[in-house]
């Protein structure tokens, strides 16, 4: 089932959680809502689930307006960050809950409930835990049970609020691969909220980047990582170097470097910033006539296949981070304290709004 969010706004007191957000979630996709805390991603998820009401705007399920529909009638599966398992019920009863509270004429018989619960438990390979209480499970087990409980009522949509946020790094990695496999198996439209960019890029079909209650960019992991639409997206998805300069007639200049920026053909001496990722920076010894920014190599950290360099610019003492292959680092025989020439290989120019 597809979900559409139309012009949704929500304020908490003076804080704007969502500012006129419109989004489409196509059927069967696994979409990540990614952003820093307080960006409105959880609020949006809760509005879709019906646990929170929007001040304005509407939510459409399969083209039908569901804004006024109550949470219990929306047929969504919701997975909470802290699991929210019913602590006084066994794992079996937790999963059976959604079936047991159905109106009498829709409620399956005891046998059917047992079969359904056990087959779901087998799907996640946790059937041996059926008689345990939530307090007797590990964090990863609890979260998988919470997900199975949500699936038991055969929801049209699966909503996950920071599902792996409370788990340690190793379990988190395992579980997100598991979630991806599970989604490939059952293909229910899913939205999951996260502040972990690695998690979003690895698991989701598409990533929605949010900041301060607005959508910054929507795209596949590759699109948003390789072609960030805004400075915020650039900065949020991994480390980045900023070069301040001026854009004029489609050319951006900083230091002795000139970059083609045809999108700013009409700019007249406007302040601009060039964004470059550490691995898109070239480092070399200065030769006569070569262009670049001279910087002193302050620290070099060689771990595995790449060498991370921390360079201090000679003109304004700003720090530049660069990442080059370890082999190259060794063959250049760079020394800490040496003055080098730094050149961005690939950049994206944004006009400085401030």
């Amino acid at each position, binding site marked *: 089932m597809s979900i559409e969010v139309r012009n949704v706004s929500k304020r908490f007191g003076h804080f704007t959680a969502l500012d006129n957000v419109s989004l489409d979630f196509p059927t069967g996709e696994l979409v990540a809502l990614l952003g820093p805390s307080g960006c409105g991603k959880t609020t949006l998820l809760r509005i879709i689930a019906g*646990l929170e009401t929007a001040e304005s705007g509407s939510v459409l399920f399969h083209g039908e307006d569901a804004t006024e529909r109550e949470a219990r009638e929306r047929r969504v599966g919701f997975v909470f960050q802290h699991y929210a398992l019913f602590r006084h019920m066994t794992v079996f009863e937790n999963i059976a809950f959604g079936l047991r509270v159905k109106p009498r004429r829709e409620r399956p018989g005891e046998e059917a409930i047992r079969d359904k619960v056990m087959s779901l438990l087998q799907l996640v390979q946790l059937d041996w835990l059926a008689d345990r209480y939530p307090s007797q499970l*590990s964090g990863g087990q609890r979260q998988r049970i919470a997900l199975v409980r949500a699936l038991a009522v055969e929801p049209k949509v699966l909503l996950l609020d920071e599902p792996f946020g409370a788990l340690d790094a190793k379990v988190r990695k395992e579980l997100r691969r598991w979630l991806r496999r599970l989604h490939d198996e059952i293909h229910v439209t899913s939205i999951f909220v996260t502040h972990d960019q690695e998690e979003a890029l690895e698991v989701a079909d598409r990533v929605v980047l949010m900041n301060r209650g607005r959508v910054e960019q929507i795209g596949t992991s590759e699109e948003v990582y390789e072609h960030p639409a805004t400075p915020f997206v650039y900065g949020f998805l991994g480390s980045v170097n900023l070069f301040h300069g001026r854009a004029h007639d489609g050319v951006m200049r900083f230091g002795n470097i000139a970059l083609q920026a045809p999108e700013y053909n009409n700019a007249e001496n406007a302040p601009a910033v060039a964004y470059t990722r550490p691995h898109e920076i070239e480092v070399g010894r200065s030769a006569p006539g070569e262009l670049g920014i001279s910087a002193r190599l302050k620290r070099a950290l060689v771990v595995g296949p790449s060498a991370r360099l921390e360079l201090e610019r000679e003109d304004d003492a700003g720090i530049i981070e660069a990442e080059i292959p370890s082999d190259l680092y060794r063959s250049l025989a760079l020394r800490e304290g040496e003055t080098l020439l730094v050149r961005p290989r690939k950049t994206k120019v944004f006009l400085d709004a401030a």
Partner: protein
Amino acid sequence: MSASIALPLGGYSIPVRRRASGESVLVKWSLIAAALAFLTLFLFVPLAAVFCEALRKGFDAYIAALAEPDALASIQLTFLVAAVAVPANLVFGVAAAWAIARFEFRGKSLLLTLVDLPFSVSPIISGLIYVLMFGAQGWIGPWLQSHGLKILFALPGIVLATMFVTVPFVARELIPLMQEQGSEEEEAAIVLGASGWQTFCRVTLPNIKWGLLYGVILCNARAMGEFGAVSVVSGHIRGQTNTMPLHVEILYNEYQFAASFAVASLLALLALVTLALKSYVEWRARHETSEPIAEGPQQ
């Protein structure tokens, strides 16, 4: 003095654990003795005295004192008052705790303070409030009188005064518990399709049941034992508006010591039962919330 000593034990040595604080055994035992002496003097001896005095004239006299019509009436009235006041406060307590723990609203801290008010007001004042309102010279007393409704010096007044005094017990017990548990489980139930009533019965109530029971036990003990507020509004009509505590006082003032202590022994017995129930509930609540983490294959 308290160094770690290795005791030779069949070729195997067990190190004696070093005590963290250096207090001597003398300090420990003198403190325990002081506490015990204090308890004996001010708690056990009076309690024993109540039962001794009650049985001084023999068991038959004891039974006779309790079976006396006025005594029976007071026992009946006490149970009747508790039977109305406790369920009423149970409903109010759950509603107030729910509102305070689950919602943000203007006047929340005021409501919290109001719930605590009966704790900070002298019971006599609580009783006087009702006299001021429902008395012959009170605000709505004349109107009630002209309509033939009797509140003061009758059952309704006693129930009202008791309810006022016992308001905090259930709510106070539940508010911190419900705040700590949060509302995620209830939200999960609703998203899974449960109605409000189903959510309350199947999720909320089981989660708060021990706290609720604890509050009800304390509330009941206070409702049956309340003296001050009830004394002001009851009018002390023998066989009609005397609860057990009031009846004890009247008998005592009339020098009927054995009968007085007989009724008092019932109240004391009630306190002991309350204590036992309270300990049991605490033990069950602790037992249920601390289960060991499962060991098993991780997948």
